[in-house]
Every structure is written in C-alpha cells, then in structure tokens.
C-alpha cells in the first residue's frame, strides 16, 4: 500500500511539467497555430526561473520570471509565424534550437549550485489524513496550480464566448475574420499563453522537480507534450490522462527494473511511450469525433483579405 501511495504521488508530480506545457500547446493549436518550440520555451523558462532565484528574489517571482521568459520566447515565434507568415514548422523548430542555446547561455555558472526547491504544502488537517493525505494533499503549490489551470482551460475553451471565438479561428480563420474577429491578435494571445505555460513547465523542472540547473534539462519533455496534444485529439481531459499515464508507466517500469523483472530494460524503457500512444489512439479512434476536435487551419498562415 505504501508503495502504491508513493507511486501515485510520484506519478502526479512527474506529469505536472507535461500538463503545463501540453495545456498551453493545446490552446495554441486550437487557435490554428502549430508551435513546435515547446522544448525551447521550457528550457528558457527553467533558466529564467533559476536566474531570478539565484539573484535573490523570492520563489514566486522566480516562477513569474519563468512564465514571462516562456511568453517572450513564444512572442519571437509569433512575430515570425503570424506577422511575417513564415512556415510555422520551421519557425517552431528554430525556437526549439534557439531556446536550448539561450538557456545554456543564461545558465552559465549555475550548474554547480543546488536550488532550494519549492516545498510541498502542509494543509492542516487534510495533509495528515493517512493515505489520502499523502495521495492528494501533500503536493507543492504548482501541482494544485496545474489542476486549476486545467479547469480554467477547459472552461475557457468550451464554456466562454472567447473560447468559442478561439476555436472558430482554429477552424476557419477566414470566416472568423469575416464576422469581425481579430484573427492575428487572438492568435498572438494564444501563442503567448502557450509560451507562458511552457515556461511554467520548465520552472517546475528547475525549481521543484529536479532543483538544479543542467543544460537541456527538459530532456525531451517538450516533444512529449507536443505528442500528447496530438494523441489526445486536442481534448484537455485526455491530455491530463495521457500525461498521468506516461508518468505512471515511467515510474512503473523503473520499479520493474529495480525488483529485477526478467524483461530487457530496453523494452521496459519503451513501455511508457508505447502504452501512452496505444491507449490514446484507442480512445480517440472515432474518426468523426476526431475530425470535430482537429483544428482544421492548423499550421496554415492567415492573411486577412480585404
């Protein structure tokens, strides 16, 4: 039971950076823009967070700086992809590479010092409940923030007029433009939200999860977040589910190795990827439903006519 509880808690934590980055990308893609640069934005967020933290500012400002850093990075993508209408694939890939370089530059000299991580909350009463307390009420504040943001994104996309407008722009920017929506401006906002969320995911890595600076410390999580959005068929709930599944399978396979399961470690290491893809593809296999969720204008530049 103890093992299950600790694995459950570890899964939630491991999934948190993925959830931040993937929820952000989901909103970006729903507006019809494909930003492949999540990895770069996460790294910039991670480096900004550590930078501000080491400069002596409180953690909340460090996290804020990561959010701003991610948003600024995405703004560069926005200018290229939305204003100058460059190819979105190329601009996103450029951002991923740029972010790795810039974050390495910012992080020079940070690698030899550990970070005082953001500590888990202790909620009087709730945190002390046996089992349930450890499973749900002993996380750091950012984990709860990820739940709040999930609810906020779902509510925004499907329950507000602005969310409807955003989705309409992702489906048919020409029609949305024709009825008076500012397509480019809304896409800019979506892109910056995505950048801010990726920055938050990066900060979670460098300030909470593995509280230290190493270059390229995201180790591919940006790409996994990107894949989650696609395999989750652009549904927020499935993104969360996919992130948990991925995190849980990662921890499960490590557990399997540690107890000496007679399965090659290479097979176990591939398990999270295979399981996540298979499960998400299975639950998203209804083609008609898929087509409804897919933002039709994804990655196509928009030039207002007339």
């Amino acid at each position, binding site marked *: 039971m103890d*093992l299950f509880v*600790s694995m459950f808690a*570890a899964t939630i934590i*491991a999934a948190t*950076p993925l959830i931040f980055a993937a929820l952000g990308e989901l909103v970006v893609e729903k507006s019809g823009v494909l930003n492949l640069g999540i990895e770069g934005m996460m790294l910039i967020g991670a480096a900004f967070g550590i930078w501000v933290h080491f400069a002596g500012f409180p953690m909340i400002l460090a996290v804020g700086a990561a959010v701003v850093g991610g948003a600024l990075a995405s703004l560069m993508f926005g200018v290229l992809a939305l204003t100058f209408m460059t*190819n979105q*694939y*190329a601009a996103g890939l450029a951002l991923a590479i740029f972010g790795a370089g810039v974050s*390495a530059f910012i992080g020079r*000299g*940070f*690698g*030899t*010092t*550990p970070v005082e991580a953001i500590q888990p909350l202790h909620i009087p009463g709730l945190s002390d409940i046996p089992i349930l307390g450890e499973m749900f009420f002993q996380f750091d504040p950012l984990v709860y923030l990820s739940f709040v943001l999930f609810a906020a994104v779902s509510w925004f996309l499907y329950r507000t007029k602005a969310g409807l407008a955003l989705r309409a722009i992702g489906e048919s920017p020409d029609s949305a433009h024709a009825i008076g929506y500012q397509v480019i401006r809304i896409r800019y906002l979506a892109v910056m939200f995505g950048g801010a969320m990726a920055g938050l995911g990066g900060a979670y*890595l460098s300030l909470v*999860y*593995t*509280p*230290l600076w*190493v*270059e*390229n*410390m995201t*180790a*591919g*999580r940006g790409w996994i977040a990107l894949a989650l959005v696609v395999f989750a068929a652009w549904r927020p709930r499935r993104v969360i589910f996919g992130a948990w599944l991925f995190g849980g399978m*990662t*921890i499960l396979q*490590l*557990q399997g*190795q*540690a*107890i*000496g*399961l*007679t*399965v*090659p*470690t*290479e*097979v176990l*290491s591939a398990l999270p990827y295979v399981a996540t893809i298979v499960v998400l593809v299975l639950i998203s296999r209804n083609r008609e439903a898929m087509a409804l969720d897919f933002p039709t204008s994804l990655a*196509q*530049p928009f030039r207002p006519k007339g």
Partner: protein
Amino acid sequence: MKRATRRDILKYGAATGLATGLTGLPGLSRAQEKLKVGTVFVSPLSEIGWTKQHSLGVEAIKNEMGDAVEITTIDNIYLPQDAERVFRELASTGHQLIFGTSFSHGTPMQKVAPRFPEVAFEHCSGIKHLNNLGTFEAKYYEGTYVAGITAGHVTKTGKIGFVGGFPIPDIVGPGNALLLGAQSVNPDITCNVIFLNSWFDPGKEKEAVKTLVAQGCDVICSMTDTPTGVQVAGENDAWSIGYASDMSQFGNGKHLTAFTLNWAPVYVDAAKRVAAGTWETSERWLGLKDDVVKLSPYNPDLPAEVVAAADQAQADISAGTLHPYAGELKDQSGAVRAEAGSRLSDGDIRGMNWFVQGMIGNLG
C-alpha cells in the same frame, strides 16, 4: 504559401552546419611554430560532470605549456555525422593533436585519421586504435570498488542502489565492482540496478533514485552525467556516491565520495610528446595507479576506520596486490566466472555483460 520541403531542410541544415563550423574555428591560418591542439566535446561545456573533467585536461595542457600551445575547443558534438566534419576541419586547419572525448566519436575518427597521417588523434573511451589514432580509457571499476567499500560500511539495510545510463560493459562493470567493494565488507549486501536507457534525463534519474530508495536501498550510486542522483538521494536521507566530478555540494551532507576522472596526465603527456615529435599510437587503460581515477574527499562523517579501509584498498589496487575482479567470482546464476586465486582477464572486464552474484537487475 511556402512549405518546407525536404530539400529546404537539407539546404538550411547544411548552411547552419557550415556556419557553426566556421565560427567554431577561429584563426584558420597561423604560423606553425605553436602546437595546435583541437578538442571535441560531446556535450556543452558545463561546470560539472564528464565534459568538465575533459576541459580540465585541456586546461592542464595550457598550464603546463603556456604560450607554446594554441587550443581549439568545439563542444556539443555528439552525432557521428557532425563529428566527422569537425574532425576533418580540425585536421585540415593545422591542428597536430586532436582529442575526441566520446565513444560516439570513434567511427568518425577512424574514418578521418587515415587521411591525415601526420596528425595525432587521441580517442577517449575508444576501442580501436590505428597508426595515428591512440585510445585511452579509465578503469572506472577501481573507483567504484573503493567507493563500494565505504558503502558497505554505512549501509544499514544491506541494500545499495545503482543507476546507469545504458546496459553496456562500461557501466555494468563499474556497477559490479561497486557491489564487490561493498561485499568485501559484508558478503550479504545486494545491489538493485536501474538503467535509464538515456545518457541524460534528470527527471527520469530522479524517479529511478526514488524507486531504489523505496526498495530499501540506503546508498545510491548514479553513473550518469548530472548531480541529480546525488541530490535526490540526499533529499531522501540516503547516502550517495558521485561520478566524474565531486558532487558533495548536492548531497545534503550524505555524499560519501565520488569516483572522479582526472584526464590531465593523459592530455599533458600526449601534447608534450607531439611537441617533441615522439608521439606514438598506443592503447592506455588507466586507473588509480595513474592518478586518472581518483576518489574525491570522503564524507567527514565517515569513521576513521572506514576511511582507512578505503585508503588501504586504494593503495593495494595501485600496488597491484588487490584486484576488484579477483576470484572467486560468481555471476547472478551462481556460475563461477573467475576461479579463486585468479582474476578476470582484461578482455573479460572490458566486455563485461553479466552481473555478479547479488546484483538485482536484468541485462536482457
């Protein structure tokens, strides 16, 4: 609307490659009286870990030979296809001694070296040497054996944990030696093993260490290239053993020691020989005796007799009276791999793809 085609990607890829190549090589033509040394690093120049230890080797050349050398450093070259271009450019721009620092540099170096017979190539962790391509490698297992002795003394649960990048002989062997060192203190100690199947993933490394701690391991040795293992062990009140660099500042006071790599003697020796015109290809496998493998300062909380035991083992290994893989040595299934009184051959050590008895893990 313009779409990126395969051709575009190839074109731009080549252009960026060219640009980085050019910026990476300042001062293309200079008078030849100085010794020009080129080094290619596998990861970005960081402050701790594998590449840092190599950059200390390069610094040692600088300190030793001063203005008589000119050093070009190119970092973050991992893929063989990139490396080949970089090695060729270094060789054709007057560098007389070129270091490759990763196993993945092997194939490109073997391709480039024969075309520049007057240039000396040195490959760290290489397995194949040519007329002008020498190889050098550290006996990591000597370091882990000594570290294992300290682990054997401090463990209360009798379980230690080992995290490795990939299940290859260079990782499996040191893992085995870690346990053998611990078993020299108490033969009942076991070691749980996890492979990340990645050289670099701090997040996964964290989960691996937490998993090992949950299994009851109270000493963790993480043979990856980040301080994460040491840090997570410290957070969970477990002892840790660092790799490549001293990582004590991350260990929360629980860093036992680290088996560090000191490449300076190799770098300086090669540079001096090339300058004197006496360099010859050779295959070196260096350990405690050669000062290439070292133990970082022990944890101050370790009792004096433990430190004495570890120091004694270091001295004995250096003197050749103690060998980490001395018989009788059994594998996981209990089969005898080295008889009592003998030891594993060097070839067997370098190709080690099996676990010793007491290792809990699977090599597929």
